[in-house]
């Protein structure tokens, strides 16, 4: 009972973070801030959702796969964003400054 409530709170919080990430992608002015929104909010949101699912499912055959997916998403998502932003900066895409047109 209490465990289910904890799992529900975690999943709802994770979905909230994912929503904030989407909002960031839609509203931020340039490439760098958009990738930053995706990297941070989506990594945390995904971990929260997977944590909630793990608590909800307890120990089953599928939970090991859930843990693996969470670990690899946690490793790869920030790395991919890092690579994207780094390449863009090397190629000379200028970051947005206050006052620039969006």
């Amino acid at each position: 009972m209490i465990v289910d409530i904890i799992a529900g709170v975690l999943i709802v919080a994770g979905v909230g973070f994912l929503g904030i990430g989407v909002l960031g992608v839609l509203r931020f002015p340039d490439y760098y801030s958009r990738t930053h929104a995706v990297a941070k909010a989506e990594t945390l949101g995904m971990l929260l959702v997977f944590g909630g699912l793990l608590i909800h499912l307890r120990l089953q055959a599928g939970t090991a796969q859930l843990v693996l997916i969470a670990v690899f998403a946690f490793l790869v998502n920030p790395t991919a964003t890092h690579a994207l932003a780094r390449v863009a900066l090397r190629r000379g895409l200028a970051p947005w400054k206050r006052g620039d047109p969006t």
Partner: protein
Amino acid sequence: MIGPHSSPNMRVIGILVVPFVLMFGVYVIAHGHYGPGGGFAGGVIVAVAVIIVRMIAPRNLSERFFPPGLPLWLMVGGMGLFVGIGVLAVAWGGDVLDYASLPLPGDDSRRRYLSILLVEFGVGAAVSGSMVFIFDLLASLERDS
């Protein structure tokens, strides 16, 4: 200008992840009968592993890992495996792609299971070959310009 990433983060995480991506790709190819996946999805995942290596390793290393001439042979060989098994069924008196007539051990369902596995690996080889081929082509266009 195009070359491997110089970022150490990218290299460490990429080298950590590549074996698991390859394993997952083969798992998706071999598991295609039972769940979502199959030759197409698994082939793309295998190709992703090769593309990660292309992105992080120096050129001589990545070409030793997956020679640039290999994608063409994979495409031809995978397609040949698929068509070959399908047409081979005719030689033993079945219809085209009727795998139960192939001279493999076991009953009908077992024979279909084995030959569908072979066909899935053929499709996977063809798809991963074409994906890496497209990536190499785009990279070489960028490099030469």
